[in-house]
């Protein structure tokens, strides 16, 4: 871990310095979102990442180049500029396009199974495991050779004896 740590240290030392340096030189390029406030810009991209481009195969609004995705991005930007909160914007899009636009399915009657199903399976598995463990630990150790195998062993030994007699 020597090399990464050296690099990380360098990164940590340089990052604030670099930040300060941007103040001096030529004006930095503008964000494509048009939000010069880095917090707004970050909020915008984070919001887009969790929204689905409706006409694409399976892409977020953040990644898609489709015409509708560009229009929807503009819509999101305009609503942000109008001072709407994230939940407001999401609510608007859902009222127009349905829950399909959300990559994170809302928790509702029809999605309880989706959200809790895996954990129910996990709990069921652990319960089954517990029952099995109780059975396995209480039971006396079985015969080192299970009965059918012992029968086969006996048959085998007989066979071999007969073979050697021949």
């Amino acid at each position, binding site marked *: 871990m020597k090399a990464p740590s050296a690099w990380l240290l360098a990164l940590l030392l340089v990052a604030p310095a670099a930040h300060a340096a941007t103040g001096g*030189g030529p004006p930095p390029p503008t964000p494509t979102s048009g939000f010069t406030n880095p917090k707004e810009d970050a909020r915008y991209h984070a919001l887009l990442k969790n929204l689905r481009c409706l006409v694409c195969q399976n892409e977020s609004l953040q990644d898609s180049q489709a015409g509708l995705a560009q229009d929807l991005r503009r819509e999101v930007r305009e609503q942000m500029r109008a001072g709407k909160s994230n939940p407001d914007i999401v609510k608007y899009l859902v009222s127009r396009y349905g829950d399909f636009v959300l990559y994170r399915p809302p928790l509702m009657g029809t999605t309880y199974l989706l959200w809790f199903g895996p954990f129910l399976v996990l709990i069921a598995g652990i319960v089954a495991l517990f029952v099995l463990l109780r059975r396995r630990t209480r039971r006396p150790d079985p015969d080192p050779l299970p009965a059918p195998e012992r029968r086969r062993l006996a048959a085998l030994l007989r066979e071999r004896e007969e073979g050697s007699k021949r």
Partner: protein
Amino acid sequence: MIPEIGHFALVLALCLALVQAVLPLLGAWRGVPEWIAVARPAARAQSLFVLLAFLCLTYAFLTNDFSVAYVAENSNTALPWFYRIGAVWGAHSGSLLLWVSILSVWTLAVTFGSRSLPEDIAARVLGVMGLVSIGFLLFMLMTSDPFTRLFPAPLNGRDLNPLLQDPGLVMHPPMLYMGYVGFAVPFAFAIAALLDGHLDAAWARWSRPWTTAAWLFLTLGITLGSWWSYSVLGWGGWWFWDPVENASFMPWLVGTALIHSLAVTDKRGAFKTWTVLLAIFAFSLSLLGTFLVRSGVLVSVHAFATDPRRGIFILIFLALVVGLSLLLYAWRAPAVKGGGNFHVLSRETLLLVNNVLLVSAAFAVLLGTLYPLILEGMAVGKISVGPPYFDTVFIPLTLPLVFLAALGSLVRWKRQPFRALIGYVWLPLVFCTAAGMLFSFWYLGRVHALLVVSVIAAFWVMLLSARDIWWRVRRNLAGGTRWYRVPRHVLGMALAHFGIGVFVLGVALAGTGSLEKDVNMHPGDAVQLAGYTYRFDGVTETRGPTYTATQARVTVSRDGQVLATLYPQKRIYIVQNMPITKAGIRPGLLHDFYVSMGEPTSDGGWAMRLYFKPMVRWIWLGPLFMALGGLLAAGDRRYRLAVVRQTQPKERAAVRPATQPLPASPGGS
């Protein structure tokens, strides 16, 4: 002429597959040695004809035979030869032929690798594989024959899907299918054992190397796919929880569970019915994956052009194969008796917990993938299930696995004294916890809970896996054996578990430490990111064999020293008039510089997406370690010896000790 030979070879292969399936299975049932003896020659002949068909299609691609409809739709004279080979499996019919060809490769391997098995078992295994071949050959001949002619033949072809014109994608499907289809072998072993009615530890031992081999290919295939999506899609991500990705990931999760469950069945004769069920599941999920990709029921980035007839065919086939297997299971499993006892704290218990977690994780992926379909089917709305869902549900189910993996080699079979275990782990645990916390604080400047837990888990599993091997070496040195004589399966396991750590570290650090900026840049503009200067030098027009491109040049420097020059492109593939972004990437073991081009902006600049991605290579390095571990384990002499010993099958009951001798120290096999 050649395409007709290919078509005819497929028809012959179908006939031979019928022979391969019917006679040996009947022979093994009725005890007719002559019918049993048909299995190998029929399987080999069937495989060779399928491979001949595959060669014929490859030949048609290499010679630009556009009178073959499939070639005309997926190739072009301008396409370089290696992409023409990749184009063989670039669309539906051809990738189906690849599927069947790879099944042939596995079938051939089984005919050679099974020579030491009892004849009736080998005949059943090959018979079951023959049944699978029948299904897929019928599917191909009835709905998607790749050799259909086109008249009149066009002068040039419509070119390969531009997304697939990438070196990673040439190798991705063969690797992935080697894994998918490879699970047909443990499946065939499981069905053979159920038909035989004799499910024992020997069955598990025979299945183990095959399962591990299939798993390692699947690991490589998924890794290649992830690497491809990182470098081609231009979004800087490495996994999108896309239905098609999930389709390959589910068999991997269940296959991983199967590898661990087989170990218990092999060593301790326990969980036989569970193991057999997992073998059926792993292959069923491979078939389900094929269905999901082919039928068009799901919307995905990778879905092939679809045809409802194909969907119905695969669904019927899936229902038959899996339905009959599960019916057979329900009939045979109740008679199977469990194996030896074990204590609450024992390797058996840990492996069971591993299985519960892996299966729950696989279920989460299955549920997330199919849930939109469920709701739509019941007409109660349409939803999307995307990365936020999977990240939330999947991580709590899998992170505990990482902690468990480290204990795998420490805990003994049957019963592990608790105090001894604590003695082995307390020091590493304290060390990793401290190191993880410090690391997180150092990395992000604050304590990020998920990062801390992930880093602790990664350090923990890497450290303990390495220590396990070190202990072995030390013991060898002390005992006078040559120091490097560590059993290959032990080395393989340690390496694979070490790989998990590498992977988790990559995911956690890349996930939390990545920086990105979406900016409108003009030539000469520079942007600071993570202490580096990304300067946009301008764009040039360039062209490749099948595309024209606008190429940007971005130089990355620090303190005036140029560290990388990146050339992201926006390509237009000429024939299909399709735009594709190709990211400019400078890979590095510690960090990648990554730039992708967006659209030109209204004021004459370019929308550029700049990334700084620390440790992202580790995400693929980890799975490479896992696959290498799988390779070592699958090639262990132990399995070959075991198989040779089975030449006198009747002796196995006498030879197999009911309980393994306890290892002399922790880290026993």
